[in-house]
């Protein structure tokens, strides 16, 4: 161990080296003079340096005593390395770019994985938290919980410390700037205690606030507080008007709690009415549980399944096929992002292989280039150990700088990931280029440097000084082995680049397939708005009138082409009930297993506004009123399922849809299938019912415009304000935007994978350019001889191009095999394209071959342009 005093001395030795050296010179100079004086006194010849011996050696030995020799050597190496790197800018820039791409890519993806998957949710003991779903056996579907079932689970289950539920709700706030729709969760008792999160300001709900008449209190989410209340710390105790009544703001949750689903949130206590305990077929409560300490998730699941089985026995009509499933909350929140992120990690790993091979190739070329320099140094007494160390230092300097550049790249890359991240990615603000990301960038850079710097260093250390000098450096042209190693490295880059390219190609083809397939509606030039009219038009008649009036007035806005109302907007979230059980007259079905269909309440204008093709019959008109014949329109999928090969027009069905009396309806028309949930999901059988006959308050409007729909926003809002000054328009967007949102996850993966593929191709191109330039440079003399003997330029060109293409081609063949693996991994994400899509595979291979050819072209042209006389003289 060094004592502090000696550490200080070492530091001084490093920092004031020049002064120490000067002092040493003075000291020795003094000694020599004293010797000379003494000699003069004795009348002798000056003994000169004999008594002191070899002066430089003495100095050297004294410097050794300072104990900082290794550090000094290292610094000298670094200085030498930097100087060397500056002298060869092409090599340096190519290496730096490669290091930066490799380290930066890995660090960015690591940052995403670390921020999204590895960092636990902001709840204490998140592994005890689960989301509880109903499992519907008759439809093989996971669904939210019905209120009645949740209440029984909570009462009977024993494995849970807390079992809480949240009901999606909306509160209309009369804000100073007009009515605002606040999406709200009504939560049951102990909701926040179950998460174990305390409010940042104020308090959460007391038990008695879940009782009738006391529940007019709200807790704000952090972003809601920031956005709509300006982050006012005195917001607690403020009374605001929600749904026409005074409510008190009693608390604000910390920012991290927004993680629940990233939206700006508001919580209010759920006050039970008589309805909830009996509601067993309305699965719309989100249930979260905290399992007791020491109880496993499996035990918790078994406990709930036991309760579900009891309920199935007690309420066979509703609960016979209802089971319960637990999903760990981390899985619930990040599950869908996981596959994408691991996929990206794999892709970036492949990119790193390309980068590593590229750096190794560059280093090898460099080492061969410097054969003569090392031969000279060996002749002057540098040990091979010393030379290897210098080479390694050089690659570490490169790697260090490259890693820092890579970190900058990761910083930008994470910004891109943050912007592109699909909505499923929780807490995107957590995606920061932080210290762990920096460490990963550096680690990747250094490991790459170590691996890629080793081979060239070893080959240099074996160089033979005498031979190197006498041959004028020519001894260091690549032997057949070294040449094969470099060709393999370049071929490998092509193989890995092809794997990336095929992956990106398959995703791209899927993306195009999804965009271009028939989705059943046209999304361009459509403005979408949502209103919840229940409270403002309380009677069915008033709501029917509201929708009629709104449609009418919207149609009169200049620039509006068509207007329709719907309770189910394609690719949007739910705005009201969307499913119903259907009975078909003349088709016997047991009451217990009536098929479930997609139920939509709409006006005739809906089909016009979205340009949903009519297959037969007619759509609703203003003449379909509450008092006229009950009618329905069905989609193609409905016909395929229930009337295969027949015309359904004129047939009669009964549809049970929330809050609407079950009425027998006549089918009057058939329309095309509309993809409701996602563009890649087939439409379910659907039944459309005219709003006049089922006047729901959940009214979305689709408005087809002549010009840019965004420019119509204010005019459209004005229409709604004219119908009810206090009713908020809860959402205004465009159909195109909804389509875009629904494709975010795909676009995210596609963009990143395409970026990696592009980077891989660029690296492979520089790799083959480098190796072919080098090989042709080395063969200058040979080419000169060939030309002197009559080989024409075309032949030389063909020879070099042939060499390059062979290297790239071999890599591409290997890459095709590797791409089989890529396509296998991607299988689940493909749409409308086979995993072994020949266009992608062949196209990718041809593209890379072309890249290889183009990159070889320059050195080939240079070789063909050689003057044979010059070439021979160049030796």
């Amino acid at each position, binding site marked *: 161990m060094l004592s502090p005093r000696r550490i200080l001395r070492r530091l001084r030795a490093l920092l004031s080296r020049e002064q120490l050296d000067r002092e040493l010179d*003075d000291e020795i100079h003094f000694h020599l003079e004293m010797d000379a004086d003494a000699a003069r006194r004795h009348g002798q010849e000056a003994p000169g340096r004999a008594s002191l011996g070899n002066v430089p050696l003495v100095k050297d030995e004294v410097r050794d005593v300072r104990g900082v020799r290794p550090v000094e050597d290292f610094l000298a190496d670094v200085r030498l390395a930097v100087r060397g790197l500056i002298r060869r800018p092409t090599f340096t820039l190519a290496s730096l770019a490669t290091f930066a791409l490799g380290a930066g890519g890995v660090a960015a993806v690591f940052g995403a994985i670390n921020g999204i998957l590895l960092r636990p949710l902001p709840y204490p003991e998140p592994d005890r938290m689960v989301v509880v779903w109903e499992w519907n056996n008759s439809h093989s579907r996971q669904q939210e919980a019905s209120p009645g079932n949740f209440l029984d689970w909570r009462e009977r289950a024993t494995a849970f410390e807390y079992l809480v539920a949240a009901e999606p709700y909306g509160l209309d706030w009369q804000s100073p700037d007009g009515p605002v729709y606040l999406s709200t969760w009504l939560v049951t008792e102990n909701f926040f205690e179950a998460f174990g999160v305390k409010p940042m300001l104020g308090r959460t709900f007391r038990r008695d606030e879940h009782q009738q008449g006391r529940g007019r209190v709200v807790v704000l989410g952090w972003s809601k507080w920031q956005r709509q209340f300006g982050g006012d710390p005195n917001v607690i105790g403020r009374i605001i008007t929600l749904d026409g009544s005074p409510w008190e703001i009693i608390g604000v949750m910390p920012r991290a709690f927004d993680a629940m689903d990233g939206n700006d949130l508001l919580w209010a206590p759920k006050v039970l009415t008589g309805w909830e305990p009996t509601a067993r077929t309305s699965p719309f409560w989100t249930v979260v549980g905290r399992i007791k300490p020491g109880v496993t998730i499996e035990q918790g699941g078994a406990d709930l399944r036991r309760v579900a089985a009891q309920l199935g026995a007690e309420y066979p009509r509703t609960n016979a096929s209802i089971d319960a499933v637990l999903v760990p909350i981390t899985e619930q929140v990040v599950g869908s992002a996981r596959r994408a992120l691991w996929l990206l990690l794999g892709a970036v790993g492949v990119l790193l292989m390309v980068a590593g091979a590229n750096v190794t190739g560059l280093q090898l070329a460099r080492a061969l280039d410097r054969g003569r320099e090392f031969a000279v140094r060996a002749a002057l007494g540098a040990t091979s150990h010393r030379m290897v160390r210098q080479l390694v230092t050089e690659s570490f300097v490169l790697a260090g700088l490259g890693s820092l550049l890579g970190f900058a790249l990761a910083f930008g890359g994470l910004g891109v990931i943050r912007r592109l991240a699909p909505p499923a990615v929780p807490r995107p603000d957590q995606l920061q280029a932080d210290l762990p990301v920096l460490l990963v960038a550096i680690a990747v850079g250094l490991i790459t440097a170590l691996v890629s710097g080793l081979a060239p260093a070893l080959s240099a250390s074996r160089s033979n000084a005498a031979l190197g000098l006498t041959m004028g450096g020519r001894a260091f042209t690549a032997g057949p082995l070294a040449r094969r190693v470099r060709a393999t490295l370049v071929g490998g880059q092509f193989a890995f680049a092809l794997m990336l390219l095929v992956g990106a190609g398959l995703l791209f083809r899927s993306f195009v397939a999804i965009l271009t397939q028939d989705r059943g509606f046209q999304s361009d030039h459509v403005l979408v708005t949502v209103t919840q009219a229940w409270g403002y038009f309380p009677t069915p008649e008033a709501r029917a009138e509201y929708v009629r009036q709104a449609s009418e007035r919207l149609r009169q806005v200049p620039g509006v082409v068509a207007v329709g109302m719907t309770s189910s907007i394609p690719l949007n979230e739910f705005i009201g009930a969307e499913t119903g059980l259907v009975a078909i007259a003349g088709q016997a079905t047991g009451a217990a297993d009536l098929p479930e269909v997609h139920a939509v309440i709409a006006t005739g204008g809906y089909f016009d506004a979205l340009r949903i093709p009519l297959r037969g019959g007619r759509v609703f008109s203003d003449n379909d009123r509450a008092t006229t014949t009950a009618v329905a329109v069905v989609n193609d999928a409905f016909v395929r399922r229930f009337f295969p090969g027949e015309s359904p027009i004129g047939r009669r069905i009964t549809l049970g849809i929330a809050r609407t009396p079950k009425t027998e309806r006549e089918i009057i028309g058939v329309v095309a299938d509309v993809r409701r949930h996602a563009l890649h999901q087939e439409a379910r059988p659907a039944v459309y019912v005219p709003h006049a006959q089922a006047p729901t308050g959940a009214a979305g409007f689709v408005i087809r415009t002549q010009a840019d729909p965004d420019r119509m926003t204010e005019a459209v809002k004005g229409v709604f304000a004219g119908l009810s000054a206090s009713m908020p328009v809860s959402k205004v967007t465009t159909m195109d935007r909804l389509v875009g949102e629904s494709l975010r996850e795909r676009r995210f993966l596609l963009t990143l994978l395409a970026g990696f593929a592009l980077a891989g191709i660029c690296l492979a191109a520089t790799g083959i350019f480098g190796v072919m330039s080098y090989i042709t440079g080395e063969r200058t003399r040979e080419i000169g001889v060939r030309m002197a003997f009559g080989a024409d330029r075309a032949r030389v060109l063909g020879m070099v191009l042939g060499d390059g293409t062979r290297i790239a081609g071999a890599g591409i063949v290997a890459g095709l095999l590797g791409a089989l693996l890529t396509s296998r991994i991607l299988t689940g994400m493909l749409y409308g394209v086979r995993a072994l899509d020949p266009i992608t595979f062949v196209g990718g291979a041809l593209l890379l071959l072309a890249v290889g050819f183009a990159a070889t072209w320059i050195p080939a042209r240079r070789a063909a342009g050689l003057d044979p006389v010059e070439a021979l003289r160049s030796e």
Partner: protein
Amino acid sequence: MAPAPTDRLQGTLDLLILRTLQSEPMHGWGIAQRLLLLSEELFQVNQGSLYPALHRLEDRGWIAAEWGTSENNRKARYYRITTAGRRQLTREREEWNAFVAAVTRVLSDA
């Protein structure tokens, strides 16, 4: 463990330097002269060993150095023994005596 021969030689030089500095601070040339004198011209210290040894002792904290003016008005680096150096001198002197005694015993027995 017995010191290796080179260590012993180096140790001996260290011991001699410390002993030389015991009475008064001195510069490198003076130390060499004093050793020559005390050893009756026997120890012609190779200056190539002297300076590394001085810097080594300084590094260990047994001697300290500062710039001063020599008897003939030249700038010289003077070394003086430190407290730690005195302790070390005592220790090394004992070791040396033991070593010499042991060698003497062996030689007289033979």
